């Protein structure tokens, strides 16, 4: 994600944009990058891709898939921060350290993963299993993505299996990349289908007129393509709940030098955008601090509040733009004040920048119900890091001396006056009783 707007692309053109977007980027989770290459891939065919990564201060470690000393873990800790995995066409499986389970454990420990499928042999059993964990359904072997309307007439005039994608319609999210309209994306390979997992982040999809089929079975293609149209995805990612990211690219040839050097291709920028998202260099936000307190007081984060008190909640959120944290401004950050169910759901309004983070605040009156309440800040947006924070406080009921006094309630005035009246009349009565003289006994009337 570039710090400049789209207008400047037209002014300065592509080269400056590429330099800017490639040079200013550091990962927030580390720079140790493992690249697992299979012998069929010639490293020189991807030199531009790897050089761009090196420019972004990644320490690349190239290993072969059947290296016996390769392990993602070192004494229980992650040995690498990121992994790029490329799949060999000839082997039946990757080594025991790269099966689905170690990959998932690597993600559970916070590592990021970029899987580049082979254009011809799309998935081995272990990678297919790993992708199924992410609810991504990889295509069968020997299938190809074909588009009879947008294909590269030079590279595949007959089979139409080198497709041209228009970034404006094929790029799903603006978080990855913003390119000039004249650029196109060159792709040759297959495509996969996505499931319904809400953690998925689709990045690049095929155009309406494309479909995936097995060229060896032409007759069956029209009946049952594996996936077709905009449901065919070429690049898709997932962000797990611990903010680890994994992206599957359906063909590694999209990142090769040939594709990058093709005329008008935006593949290099796309590669940069994909790797930046995957390796936590872009679209990363964090919660810098959270405080809650009684409105207009200074004590922060008390443990106990009382019902119907005014409470102020403040949160600070920052965004990483490649080399530093800056304020992250959004208008849909919400706070839930919850006890089993949210009693309040309030929008936090951005108040202003506070150093390198943006301050969001709201003030509300605690509900008239005592109990254990939680301030729950839950900000999960597709493509951005997940931000979640829970703080539990006690809401006590009124103390016996905190209720309104009767003379403060106008409704009680008649009762107050009656008490006063009765006491005054009683005083009068006792005085009159005491000071009235002895009775003259009334004579009985006789006739």
């Amino acid at each position, binding site marked *: 994600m570039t710090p400049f707007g789209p207008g400047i692309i037209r002014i300065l053109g592509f080269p400056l944009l590429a330099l800017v977007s490639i040079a200013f980027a550091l990962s927030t989770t580390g720079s140790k990058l493992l690249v697992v290459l299979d012998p069929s891939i010639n490293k020189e065919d991807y030199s531009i891709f790897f050089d761009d990564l090196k420019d972004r201060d990644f320490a690349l470690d190239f290993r072969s898939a059947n290296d016996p000393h390769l392990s993602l873990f070192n004494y229980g800790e992650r040995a690498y921060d990121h992994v790029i995995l490329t799949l060999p066409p000839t082997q039946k499986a990757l080594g025991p350290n790269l099966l689905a389970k170690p990959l998932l454990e690597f993600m559970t420990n916070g590592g990021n993963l970029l899987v580049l499928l082979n254009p011809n042999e799309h998935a081995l059993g272990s990678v297919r299993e790993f992708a199924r964990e992410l609810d991504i359904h990889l295509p069968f072997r020997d299938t190809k993505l074909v588009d009879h309307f947008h294909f590269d007439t030079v590279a595949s005039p007959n089979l139409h299996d080198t497709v041209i994608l228009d970034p404006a319609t094929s790029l799903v999210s603006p978080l990855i990349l913003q390119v000039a309209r004249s650029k196109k994306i060159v792709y040759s390979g297959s495509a996969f289908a996505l499931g319904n997992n809400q953690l998925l982040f689709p990045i690049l999809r095929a155009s309406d007129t494309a479909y995936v089929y097995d060229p060896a079975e032409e007759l069956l293609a029209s009946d049952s393509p594996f996936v077709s149209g905009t449901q065919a995805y070429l690049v898709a990612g997932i962000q797990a709940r611990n903010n680890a990211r994994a992206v599957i690219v359906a063909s590694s040839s999209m990142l090769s030098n040939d594709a990058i050097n093709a005329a008008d291709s935006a593949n290099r920028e796309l590669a940069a955008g994909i790797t930046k998202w995957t390796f936590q260099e872009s679209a990363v936000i964090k919660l810098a601090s959270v405080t809650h307190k009684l409105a207009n007081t200074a004590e922060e984060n008390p443990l106990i509040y009382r019902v119907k008190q005014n409470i102020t909640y403040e949160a600070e959120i920052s965004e990483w733009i490649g080399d530093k944290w800056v304020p992250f401004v959004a208008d849909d950050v919400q706070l839930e004040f919850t006890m089993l169910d949210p009693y309040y759901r309030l929008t936090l309004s951005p108040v202003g920048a506070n150093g390198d983070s943006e301050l969001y605040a709201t003030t509300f009156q605690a509900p008239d119900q005592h109990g254990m309440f939680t301030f729950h800040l839950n900000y999960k947006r597709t493509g951005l890091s997940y931000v979640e924070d829970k703080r539990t406080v006690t809401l006590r009921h009124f103390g016996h001396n905190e209720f*309104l006094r009767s003379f403060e309630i106008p409704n009680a005035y*008649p009762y107050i006056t009656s008490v006063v009246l009765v006491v005054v009349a009683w005083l009068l009565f006792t005085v009159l009783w005491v000071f009235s003289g002895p009775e003259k006994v009334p004579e009985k009337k006789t006739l």
Partner: protein
Amino acid sequence: MAPKRTPRQAVAKTGAVSSSPSLATESPATSGASTSAASRIPALPTAADTSAIVYQAWNSYVTDTPRKLKLVDAFMVFLVAVGLIQFVYCILVGNYPFNAFLSGFSITVGQFVLTASLRMQANPNNSSQFEKVTPERAFADFIFGSLILHFFAYNFIN
């Protein structure tokens, strides 16, 4: 224990047309055979009879009650009025500060009860039933109870 009167005097005393006096008060000298038969059947009470009864009751109250008891009765009527006003107000407007309503209402009710017991014990006509309690002792109890009641009402109304 009305003294014997002649029928003429009895009629004069009760004023307007009223039921004939009871047969027991007729003196044999003046009663004739003609009037005795007619006056033995009592007539049904009319509206004029009811108002006459009320008037007589009120009259005898005013004349026969000692002054002190009349003072007590006036106080009690006042308490009833104040309590009634509060009750009607609570029904109309609602009982939001319920403790205030209870406090105001109960001070009138409690004071009424204490005053009633004072009236009972201090009435000289009842002295035969209260041998151990002199009127002064009754009044002292009345004051003691009233003070406790006022203390409660003042605290409960908050």
